């Protein structure tokens, strides 16, 4: 075993890991290592060759690789150590990391750890689409990586399942590379991705968007041959008699993203049942002291700009954990729970009174919506919103008074239509 001792170990060298590492350095941490399994930094951004990144942050609309390069340069300039093609195989509760690469096994002792593993795509088997198992079925992100990183075209006549941003972006990408994009199938009555993408990826290219539909069967012996789609009712159940067949040779699945937390679970980090991700406090610290989480492995973000802000906070917290600067924390912990209309809230715990930022998502589209944060019967915040939708993360600042903090009441976050 090759032994290492570092101040901060960051697991994942994508946008979250890089921003967190840079921030940790800027807040006083010295020896920082970023551990990345790929042979490149920047994570998923390297295959996101479309633009739209960094608009809020830089004022310019950058492509994924350009945004990544910005942070990679910052990390290298600040002498942050990078381990590429290195897989973390074990994370322990005492913040020791076991990783493996072509040089062998590494044991990394870290004073603080930042989890930045990102997320994974939902597969066919998460949703159990019936039918045969021919070749030609990809998750949208994998197809994107084949085309944009390996110059391999995945198919000629494609059906895309799911109208989230990844699916919409890939609809355009496939079209621009000469494929026939027959349709995008969406189970909900509205598209899941940004309106901008619906316009620039589907409408611009006359690609049909079939709302209120789902794929109920996949056919094909060696290769995909056709899919069966059905209209669904308001409970998302297929309506019998509405079946239609679509001939195709490729299916791209854009069924949603799931935070990746195999290592978190291994270290016995407490996982929140709503996010499927670590439960954190306002400093983005998990229940294990010195282990922090940020980025898509904590909750899936709408834009990389917002993700970077969160990652920088985690980097700051990880550095301050070591330098112990200004760390006023109390034994008291109050819990923040999602109430009516709210799918999830981050952070799930607050262990300091004062101003805290809450990030949340609505359960379903509401127009208008009133956001309410209450502790027992005390109202901490009422905010009227023009609209609320699951695909737009809501961020609000609340102030937890000493009185509320000491009472240990549960903070409930509600969205009322």
């Amino acid at each position, binding site marked *: 075993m090759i032994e290492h001792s570092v101040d901060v170990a960051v697991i994942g060298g994508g946008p979250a890991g890089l921003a967190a590492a840079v921030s940790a350095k800027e807040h006083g941490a010295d020896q920082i290592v970023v551990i990345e399994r790929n042979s490149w930094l920047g994570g998923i951004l*390297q295959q996101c*060759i*479309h*633009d739209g990144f960094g608009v809020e942050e830089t004022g310019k*609309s*950058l*492509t994924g*690789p*350009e945004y990544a*390069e910005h942070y990679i340069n910052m990390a290298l300039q600040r002498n942050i150590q990078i381990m590429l093609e290195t897989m973390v195989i074990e994370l322990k509760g005492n913040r020791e990391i076991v990783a493996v690469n*072509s040089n062998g096994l590494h044991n990394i002792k870290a004073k603080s750890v930042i989890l930045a593993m990102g997320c994974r795509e939902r597969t066919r088997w998460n949703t159990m689409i019936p039918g045969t198992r021919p070749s030609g079925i990809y998750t949208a992100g994998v197809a994107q990586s084949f*085309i*944009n*990183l*390996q*110059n391999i075209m995945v198919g000629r006549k494609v059906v895309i399942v799911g109208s989230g941003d990844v699916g919409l972006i890939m609809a355009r990408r496939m079209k*621009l590379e000469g494929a026939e994009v027959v349709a995008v199938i969406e189970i909900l009555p509205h598209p899941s991705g940004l309106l901008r993408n619906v316009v*620039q990826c589907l409408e*611009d290219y006359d690609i049909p968007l079939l709302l209120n539909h789902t794929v109920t069967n996949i056919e094909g012996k060696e290769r995909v041959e056709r899919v069966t789609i059905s209209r669904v009712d308001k409970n998302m159940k297929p309506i019998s008699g509405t079946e239609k067949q679509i001939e195709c040779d490729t299916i791209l699945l854009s069924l949603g993203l799931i935070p990746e937390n195999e290592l978190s679970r291994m270290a016995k980090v407490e996982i929140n049942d709503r996010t499927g991700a670590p439960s954190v406090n306002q400093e983005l610290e998990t229940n294990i002291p010195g282990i922090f989480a940020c980025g898509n492995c904590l909750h899936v973000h709408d834009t990389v700009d917002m993700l970077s802000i969160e990652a920088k906070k985690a980097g700051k917290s990880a550095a301050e954990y070591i330098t112990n600067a200004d760390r006023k924390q109390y034994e008291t912990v109050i819990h923040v729970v999602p109430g009516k209309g709210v799918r999830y809230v981050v952070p799930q715990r607050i262990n300091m009174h004062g101003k805290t930022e809450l990030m949340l998502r609505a359960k379903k589209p509401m127009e208008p919506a009133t956001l309410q944060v209450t502790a027992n019967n005390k109202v901490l915040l009422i905010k009227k919103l023009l609209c609320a939708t699951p695909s737009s993360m809501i961020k609000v600042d609340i102030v937890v008074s000493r009185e509320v903090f000491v009472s240990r009441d549960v903070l409930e976050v509600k969205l009322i239509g």
Partner: protein
Amino acid sequence: MHVKMHEKQIKVIEGNKCKKGVEYALEEVLNPRRVLTSSVLILGGELPIVSVKTLHPIQKEKISDALAEIKRSVVNAPIRSGEIVIKNVADTGINIVATKTVPRKRFLKLNQRRC
């Protein structure tokens, strides 16, 4: 936002939340433009293709001509992000630039192994 047209002339624009909305609506309706992103074959590089973009949005009608030019193009490594890959694509007056830095492929010495 709502835009009412009459024979290719804009009559009404309403519903914008800021000044930029009017600018955007005018452009979208009269002269819609898009940033085109794609990839170009690169020879001798660490990657087989380099991602590219039009430096500014180009007219929608020019997209298929631009794509044809991109498909025909080949560049040699190394390429720096921001370097011009195609000048004045499809006669739009707009250049296509690389969005990624791709170094020259290093060949491994005989005694280096990668497992």
